[in-house]
């Protein structure tokens, strides 16, 4: 019997205990540590996926909320614009041109020679426009005064075009052909 066999034989008990300890180590790694590590990796992937999805949904929610807020804000502003700034209807729009513009012309010493108006529905819009072409005669200074007062007045009147020509009267007299317009919200019952 060799020395090696003799040691194995004589220390069998002690060797068995050591071998058992090592076997338990291997078993613990194989059946507990490794599966739990895999499970943890899976949980980490799940967590990462849930986090990114949550971020995406949070962004989508923020965008939807912002769009909703923007829409509400725009609606409020539009309602205010339609209700407080623009004439409410054709009658009110008509009133801006006559007597308001007539009076303004008189106050600035201009003679209203001719006026034509047309109301029409704007394409793809809830607004309708009332356009007028006015032919006014007077001095240049008075024409400038008229335009100045018209554009600084609170009434919502747009100057669309200005055509100046020499009048037939005195040398200083000019003829102003002024294209003006205003807008109002057309109600369904008003029709075209």
């Amino acid at each position, binding site marked *: 019997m060799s*020395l090696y066999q003799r*040691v194995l034989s004589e*220390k069998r008990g*002690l*060797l068995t205990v050591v071998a058992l*300890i090592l076997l*338990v*180590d291997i078993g*613990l*790694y194989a059946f*507990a*540590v490794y599966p*739990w*590590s895999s*499970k*943890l990796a899976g*949980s980490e992937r*799940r*967590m990462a996926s*849930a986090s990114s*999805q*949550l971020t995406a*949904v949070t962004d*989508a*929610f923020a965008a*939807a*909320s*912002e*769009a*909703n807020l923007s*829409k509400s804000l*725009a*609606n409020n*502003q539009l309602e*205010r*614009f339609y209700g*407080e700034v*623009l004439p409410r209807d054709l009658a009110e729009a008509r009133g801006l041109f006559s007597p308001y513009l007539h009076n303004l012309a008189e106050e600035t010493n201009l003679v209203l020679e001719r006026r034509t108006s047309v109301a029409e529905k704007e394409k793809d*819009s809830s607004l309708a426009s009332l356009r007028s072409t006015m032919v006014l005669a007077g001095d*240049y*200074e008075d024409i*400038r*005064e008229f*335009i*100045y007062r018209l*554009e*600084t007045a*609170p*009434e*919502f009147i*747009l*100057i*669309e*075009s*200005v*055509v*100046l*020509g*020499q009048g037939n009267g005195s040398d*200083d007299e000019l003829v102003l052909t002024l294209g003006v317009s205003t807008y109002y919200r057309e109600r369904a019952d008003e029709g075209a």
Partner: protein
Amino acid sequence: MLRTNLATRPFYNERAVHLVLGALALVGLAVLATLALRVMDLSERNTELSARAEQAERERAELSARTTEVQGGVSTVVLEEVAVAAREANTLIDQRVFSWTQFFNRIETTLPPDVMVTLVRPDIAPGSVEVTMGVVGRDLGAITHFIGALEESGAFSSVLNQTAELTDDDMYQAVLRGSYLQEDGPGLADAPEGAAALSDRDVDGAPESDPARGTPDASDPRTAQVPPGGGACP
């Protein structure tokens, strides 16, 4: 002297064997303890991560439902309608704040004595104002000089003499078109979401009393020196 080994079991170093086996056992036990601790740690972390993932998934589902609800109240069609209406309102406001007084003041500083402005028509779009002007001049050189003066003033750019023709009065009648640069012009922002641009504007519509714009005080029309149409031309 007796030289023969009479022992039935020859000697070997048992202490060394015990030492090696003891060391192996200790290492094995240490590894065992480490593995046990690792298992506990992994289990704890896994439980915690699973709970957090479940919480995140619950939140996502909840938020997703709320998003759907909010999105339901803001349909693309409605949003587009509001955006179109806001753009339209912004364009009107931009047209309203266009200062004719300032425009005339700037024209008057550049108008040569032998040129007369007969027509002015601005086309106001978000971000740009294109102005069409009808002018009458004694000769084409005077009109060209006027175009140069307009561009040099910084108030206009890209001015083009679109048409020019000789009238019965031996005058040249021309149509000029160019970009007008307002000193404090209309807001350039469009209404991408229908709200922002409109809310930035003066919804009251009337131009503010801003001297820089040539509105009240600083630009009293009575300060005008050379009237368009009142120049040297007949």
